[in-house]
């Protein structure tokens, strides 16, 4: 992929600076380059001190790693953001309506707009949710919509993270770090604040509390524990919300309610923001070997006595085969054309599509339908003949397990390298909160950046970094 031909967030093809970056460029041109580089070290120290580290799955040594942070912000104008917000809100509303429909009347299937097999064969589909409506009617309380850009007006949705989107602590800590390092920059450029996200999250979760909860519902963040790769984020959010950080072993079903073991005895929890997968939530209902969950919690849930966010079974919407139907889904539930397009997607279950994909493997990106984190995928243009041949076998053996997309020329944004600014590919994950009081989108999100030149993989588990993401208050 030649990065020269990509849309760059900061620079126009003629080398001039785009309007979004005018204020930043003005500031940057006054900074000493060596001083800027010394700031990179400062940023790293800052992150180490706060402990915003993660553990990589499958790596033995207990060493905690930092996700690389780049100091050049990704800047979005107020106008761009207003457009994106409308598209995101439309999509999230559709997602919730879709979930409700899937677990109730399944109108979309009756209408012939979605093949039934798509969710019937899906591990994330939970028969236990059929006919049940979660408190407040909300399924996806917290959503992360992964957006990519290919041109001035071309934003597309690459993925909907409706299960348990992570990374919001980076959105918050990246901003804190930038403000600590470059305070004068923020008086120079007016940037919309993200710091009230935890308060908004707490309010949004409280608004989804079950009927029996009092005026001040008790909220807990359920974590798999300190060895989980995202533990920092779990603790961070609990701390910032003023919520309890609980593990499965702290919870128990007592008198038909989920209760936590406190120093003063068992006390009820009304809303559980779980960062534990469905499968581990309740050993009585799902994986019997799970020690991360709470025996009997699903019964309490179905009796309407606790809110679980996100609702069990929402993982269906994370599925890449379902993703390919999102334009139809948006239209079906909102009656409107989607404001944010999907990336063109070939479903390999379909013989014609499969033929096309097999003929064009070297140009396409092929993904597992249930995969995530950038694992188990093929990026045709950067793969060797041998890798492509090996992938072809897997694809032919189980075509319904894959979808394919064109290799996108993701937009680039400069990062600071030893040799000055250099463009790297980025995406953007805005965080969206849903409650009966509405859809709330924090202005900004997490920008992930492929640190390696030319690389299109932005996942942190694969060496991607992050940037502060600004929405201008213009």
């Amino acid at each position: 992929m030649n990065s020269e031909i990509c849309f760059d967030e900061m620079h126009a093809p003629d080398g001039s600076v785009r309007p979004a970056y005018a204020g930043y460029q003005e500031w940057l041109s006054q900074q000493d380059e060596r001083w800027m580089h010394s700031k990179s070290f400062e940023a790293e120290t800052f992150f180490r001190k706060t402990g915003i580290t993660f553990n990589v799955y499958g790596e033995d040594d207990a060493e905690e790693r930092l996700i690389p942070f780049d100091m050049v912000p990704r800047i979005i104008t107020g106008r761009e953001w207003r457009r994106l917000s409308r598209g995101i809100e439309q999509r999230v509303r559709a997602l919730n309506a879709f979930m409700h429909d899937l677990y109730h009347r399944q109108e979309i299937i009756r209408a012939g707009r979605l093949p039934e097999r798509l969710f019937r064969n899906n591990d994330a589909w939970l028969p236990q949710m059929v006919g049940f409506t979660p408190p407040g009617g909300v399924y996806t309380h917290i959503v992360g919509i992964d957006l990519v850009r290919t041109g001035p007006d071309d934003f597309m949705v690459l993925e909907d993270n409706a299960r348990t989107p992570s990374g919001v602590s980076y959105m918050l800590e990246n901003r804190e770090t930038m403000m600590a390092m470059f305070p004068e920059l923020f008086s120079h450029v007016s940037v919309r604040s993200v710091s009230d996200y935890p308060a908004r999250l707490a309010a949004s979760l409280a608004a989804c509390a079950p009927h029996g909860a009092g005026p001040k519902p008790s909220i807990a963040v359920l974590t798999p524990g300190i060895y989980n790769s995202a533990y920092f984020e779990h603790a961070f959010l609990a701390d910032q919300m003023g919520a309890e950080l609980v593990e499965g072993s702290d919870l128990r079903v007592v008198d038909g309610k989920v209760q936590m073991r406190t120093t003063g005895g068992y006390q009820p929890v009304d809303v559980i923001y779980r960062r534990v997968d469905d499968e581990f939530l309740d050993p009585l209902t799902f994986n019997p070997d799970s020690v991360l969950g709470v025996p009997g919690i699903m019964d309490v849930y179905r009796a309407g006595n606790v809110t679980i966010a996100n609702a069990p079974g929402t993982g269906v919407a994370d599925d890449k085969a379902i993703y390919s139907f999102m334009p139809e889904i948006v239209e079906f539930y909102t009656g409107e054309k989607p404001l944010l397009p999907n990336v063109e997607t070939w479903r390999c279950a379909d013989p014609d599509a499969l033929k096309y994909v097999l003929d064009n493997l070297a140009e396409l990106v092929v993904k597992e339908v249930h995969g995530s984190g950038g694992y188990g995928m093929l990026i045709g243009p950067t793969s060797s003949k041998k890798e492509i041949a090996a992938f072809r076998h897997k694809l032919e053996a189980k075509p319904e397990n894959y979808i394919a997309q064109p290799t996108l020329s993701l937009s680039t944004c400069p990062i600071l390298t030893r040799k000055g600014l250099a463009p790297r590919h980025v995406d953007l994950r805005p965080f969206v909160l849903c409650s009966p009081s509405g859809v709330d989108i924090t202005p900004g999100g997490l920008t992930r950046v492929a640190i390696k030149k030319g690389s299109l993989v932005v996942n942190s588990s694969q060496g991607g970094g992050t940037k502060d993401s600004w929405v201008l208050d213009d």
Partner: protein
Amino acid sequence: MANRTHILGRTANATFWMYRYLERAENTARLLAAGQRMALTRGAEMASQEWASVLTTLGLKDSYLTQYDEYTGSHVCDFVLRSKNNPESVLSMMERARLNARMCRSAITAEVWESVNEGWMSLRELLSKQVRSANLHEVLMAIRRESAVVRGATHGSMLRNEIYSFARAGTFLERADNTARILDVKYYLLLPSLSYVGTPLDAGQWDNVLRSLSAERAYRWLNAGRSDIRSIADFLILDDRFPRSLIFCYHAMRENLFHLAQFHGREGKVHETMREADVKLSEITVEAIFEQGLHEFLLGFIADNNKLASAIAEDYRFIA
């Protein structure tokens, strides 16, 4: 005042232990510093004896002897500070303090968390290789300093609620235990026979007892010219002005347990145990202690201290 719900039992446990480990690391550093001083000012035989006593105090003698067959300063310090073969090393105490801090992360302030995390990072760096004797002083100072920084952050940023009480209870419970152990071992070492009681002893040796508890200046300021075991024991056990004395630790424990009872609206088993221990300590005199035998007294004290620790864990549901 809005009374929010109680913290998790598991969180209380992690807070309690985080402060215990920090206190233990700090006291271990004091003990090593005193040992080093003693070894430098005495002959080789005395030095070896001194290092052996450091290991005895820490309960590490047996595991040390599986690795080494003689007591030298560099081996003992390496073993106590950082050896991978010693699960009770200062480095692993700091690791456990941090692990517990991570576990109670949402109960402590960001300031406290960051001070623990930074302390761990800097000590891990300092202890990444064998400490040269020229650097020992610096390293031991750093251990005490990191612990002091956490204490300062705790004092200056934490709400005075039950979390704070668990933190302080952990600190003083551990400190009382450490003071009792240090006094016990030193006393044994210095007094091969009871007939020594009351006789003026080698000033350097007494100085060492006091130094192990950072008490030498305070003691001399209060007891100019006196250095016999009775007045030193009196000071380390019963002087409520000295912040590492047993009675000081127990007054602080009593106060924090009182806050817990107030917060919870009831007392538990730990309060009963505390009252008994408190009465014992308040009513006893140094004469009575020596009549009973200092060693027996201290053993009894350490056992009671452990009872307090189990009672607090049970009363406040530290473990499911």
